[in-house]
């Protein structure tokens, strides 16, 4: 009865929210996160080798803040590139490197001039597409950068700024760590490998031998999708990865059974004797979106941020390893296990992300991305002993509130997950989900990108939700969170935030934004009205008929022959094509692993556009054009 009442209240509240929102066109409420410079969004940190200076990357303000770590005072605010994501310091402390994810560069800062007042980077170095994690080798000569869009690792000569090579990494390469002896670099990935449809997600830890500058191992992680930070113990015998385990092959109706997300660590290396997956949730409480991770120098404790739960979890390493070695079978889904090795949960600020540990292991700094502060944790007592205000605006706007809601998991049943679990860093997750309570394996749907959504309504693959308010309100209450979630004002803020998300710049156009010759040929195919034999293509079979307008969607639903026996209806909403190159696999159920397969495998009767008269060259051209959208 109580749950029923809760749902009824939620539906009522959501209806009010929808009514409020419908009065204001979405585009009029939208803004761009980058335009609001009063917020900082600190996300990642690094300490100078002597522990004196703390470098803090601020995603929102495009800055690197330099703090006196002991005093907690901001000394400098250094302008870097657009949407910086990570920072690394050279072993001698003389250079600082910041990855700029939208510029595809690394900013190089001369740390020796910081005391003299420097406020700018001395130079920038080109990387792969969307650089995230960065580490410097022990000689201070080579930079390793994880590139999220190009799915690789740039190996860069620091002196010349030349990319010596790119090493193939996993899908969405993002976070890195280097072993204390400098012999190995570890890379993790936010998206699972693109594999066969409806199979258990697979990820990997990519291991690079720094002497050879080559990938020498890919540690497979079955059932893992969404890997974040990785850390390695000082003795090199233990590595730890923060990660998610989505239960996406099951209907989402089972939220109450904990069958949507598990939040865990992978422990690897000699101490683990291989790889061990360790749950961090509890029976009735989840700690969502594990993100930052640090190991004390003496290896006694592991600290992990639960970015959706505003918590830092403290793990007793000795008890963890003893417990793990005593279990004969995998226990990653045993929610009672964490009580055996979790020694504390420390409340911190909103959306805790990256961490940095002082060289002596006494202090842990936590970047609270959504309230522009750092939490300082005393690692001996496992208590928060201070908060450093980085100087962001205290006036919280609707957009900011919306972003805070987007990352907060407290609205879901038992705090299992937030929007950000599936829309990692406000993108997607590379998974299909069984959302509706209509039986196992029915109506499987691809999780779509949420960039530049204005003008792409309705939502859902069947076009069933006419507005974002309905998508995020009653639908989320009923099918996702299984509990009363957002109040009407909160829902309005959340919708504002989602509509404000801009499209990332295309990495596939020429530097001046123009199209290559192949892309121009592909564009002509996209807009053609006559086939190669001079015969008119029926209007409904022309690419640009369904994929029309600025977002390349007519906002209408069609049967393009891609329905399966598992679908209740073969009619699907026309998806927008914004940044379509980034979101493989494709089609409503991710049955097409690549853009090519949409037409080579799933369009035998030309229902999904007239393409069967195209040669392989021409299909390649069409795809080259689509990749620019």
């Amino acid at each position, binding site marked *: 009865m109580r749950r029923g009442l809760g749902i009824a209240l939620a539906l009522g509240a959501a209806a009010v929210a929808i009514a409020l929102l419908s009065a204001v066109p979405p585009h009029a409420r939208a803004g761009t996160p980058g335009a609001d410079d009063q917020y900082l969004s600190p996300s990642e940190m690094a300490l100078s080798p002597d522990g004196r200076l703390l470098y803090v990357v601020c995603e929102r303000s495009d800055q690197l803040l330099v703090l006196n770590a002991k005093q907690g005072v901001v000394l400098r605010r250094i302008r870097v590139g657009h949407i910086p994501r990570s920072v690394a310091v050279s072993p001698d402390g003389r250079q600082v490197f910041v990855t700029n994810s939208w510029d595809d560069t690394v900013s190089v800062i001369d740390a020796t001039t910081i005391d003299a007042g420097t406020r700018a980077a001395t130079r920038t170095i080109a990387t792969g597409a969307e650089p995230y994690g960065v580490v410097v080798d022990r000689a201070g000569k080579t930079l390793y950068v994880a590139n999220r869009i190009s799915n690789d690792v740039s190996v860069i000569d620091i002196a010349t700024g030349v990319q010596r090579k*790119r090493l193939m990494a996993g899908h969405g390469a993002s976070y890195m760590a280097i072993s204390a002896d400098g012999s190995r670099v570890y890379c993790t990935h936010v998206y699972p490998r693109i594999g066969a449809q409806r199979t258990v997600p697979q990820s990997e830890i990519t291991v690079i031998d720094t002497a050879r500058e080559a*990938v020498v191992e890919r540690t497979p992680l079955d059932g893992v999708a969404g890997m974040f930070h990785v850390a390695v113990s000082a003795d090199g015998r233990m590595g730890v990865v923060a990660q998610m385990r989505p239960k996406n092959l099951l209907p989402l109706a089972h939220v109450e059974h904990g069958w949507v997300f598990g939040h865990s660590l992978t422990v690897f290396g000699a101490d683990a004797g291989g790889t061990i997956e360790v749950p961090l949730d509890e029976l009735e409480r989840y700690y969502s979106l594990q993100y930052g991770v640090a190991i004390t120098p003496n290896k006694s404790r592991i600290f992990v941020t639960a970015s959706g739960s505003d918590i830092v979890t403290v793990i007793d390493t000795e008890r963890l390893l003893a417990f793990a070695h005593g279990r004969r079978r995998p226990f990653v889904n045993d929610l009672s296990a964490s009580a055996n090795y979790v020694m504390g949960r420390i409340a911190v600020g909103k959306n805790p992300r990256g961490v940095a540990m002082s060289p002596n292991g006494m202090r842990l700094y936590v970047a609270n991305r959504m309230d522009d502060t750092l939490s300082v944790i005393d690692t001996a007592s496992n208590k928060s002993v201070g908060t450093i205000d980085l100087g962001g605006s205290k006036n919280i706007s609707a957009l900011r509130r919306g972003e805070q809601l987007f990352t907060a998991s407290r609205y879901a049943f038992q705090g299992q997950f937030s929007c950000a679990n599936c829309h990692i860093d406000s993108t997607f997750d590379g998974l299909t989900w069984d959302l509706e309570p209509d039986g196992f394996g029915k109506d499987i749907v691809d999780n779509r990108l949420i960039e530049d959504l204005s003008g792409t309504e309705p939502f859902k693959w069947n076009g069933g939700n006419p507005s974002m308010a309905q998508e995020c309100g009653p639908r989320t209450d009923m099918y996702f969170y299984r509990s009363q979630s957002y109040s009407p004002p909160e829902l309005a803020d959340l919708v504002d935030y989602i509509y404000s998300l801009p499209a990332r710049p295309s990495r596939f156009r020429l530097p001046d934004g123009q199209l290559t010759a192949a892309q121009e040929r592909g564009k002509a195919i996209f807009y053609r009205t006559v086939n190669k034999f001079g015969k008119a293509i029926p209007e409904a079979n022309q690419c640009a008929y369904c994929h029309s307008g600025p977002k390349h969607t007519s906002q209408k639903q069609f049967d393009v022959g891609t329905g399966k026996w598992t679908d209740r209806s073969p009619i699907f909403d026309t998806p927008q094509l914004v940044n379509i190159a980034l979101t493989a696999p494709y089609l409503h159920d991710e049955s097409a692993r690549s853009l090519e397969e949409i037409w080579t495998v799933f369009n035998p009767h030309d229902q999904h556009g007239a393409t069967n008269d195209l040669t392989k*060259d021409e299909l390649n051209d069409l795809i080259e054009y689509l990749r620019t959208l």
Partner: protein
Amino acid sequence: MKPPILTALLLVTLPLAGTVKSAAVKPAAAKNAAEASTTSMPLFRWENFTTANGLPDNHVFAVLVDGDRVWAGTENGLALLEGGRWKVLTPRDGLAHRVVLSLAIDKSTGDLWVGTMGGLSHISAGRIDTYTQLNSGLSNDVVYGVGVQGDFVWTATAAGASRLNTRTGEWSLYNERNTPMAEIWTYAVSTGADKVYYAVWGSGVLEYTIATGRWKDYTDPDGENELVLFRDQGLIHKITTSVSYVDNTLWAATYFGDSHYDGRSWHNFLTKDSGLPSNFTNQVKGLDATRAWFCTDKGLAYYDGVNWAVYRPALDTGKPEMYIRDASGKITSVPVKTAPAHNYMLSIDFEGDDVWVATGKGLSHGIRQK
């Protein structure tokens, strides 16, 4: 899988091959040949691998040496010899197809590219990713040749050439529409810092200049005529099977003899005027501008710029055989106790002084004897 015309052409080749066979019988009559040339040519002790000692299939199409590791592309999987043990990868492991036709290593990353009868596989630290004509821009699933040039992976397929930009994922296709390729049956590719060469079955050799992005073709000046009217006038034949670009020099193999091109002059090799044991050459691989190895249907030949050495089981008795032909045409038999697994040679690779040879009946390791 070879075109029907090939069968007819093979009939033309056979008499020439017979001539070589008889030449190979002669060495016993040349015992007193000059010692200088015999001692300068490499001697090998051959160790052979077959299904009896771990190879998944005796039909070996390609071999590649990567330090201490040897990869062998066979008709039934990709075999890796490491630490004295064979490991086999098949489609069950994610390989594109069980028939492995070509191999290339990216020396920068250590990754292996594998051309098969069912697509192109990329092996990196044990992970296998496969590109096919359905799931990618690859022009055709039959990948006869593969080569790495910087960030680009070039493939020779049954439907033209493909180039994958590994940084952007873009595929570029090259065929009769945008190159001088009259036939699109590309058999082999060889990459260099400045040029990429293709052996095109029926269209001679295609040259791609990286700086300009332009293609140029080299064909047999005699055209359809199977006779060589003028020696060294150009590519020996347009039915090319293999190319090797090294030290700014092109080596080209055909089913009707082989060619050497230094950018200005051509020099051709036929059984009648060289030490080639057969004009039917499956692969040529240059060591440098003057030295090369030739994998023919009647043995393995080494050319040091002056002299020739041939290694094989004797065509009549099957006993180990090695002979040397010097610049004057004298043939000297070299007594040997071992030979490659078979005389039908398909591919060669080398590491240091040793050679590895893929044959129709096993993989052979030639261990250099001092």
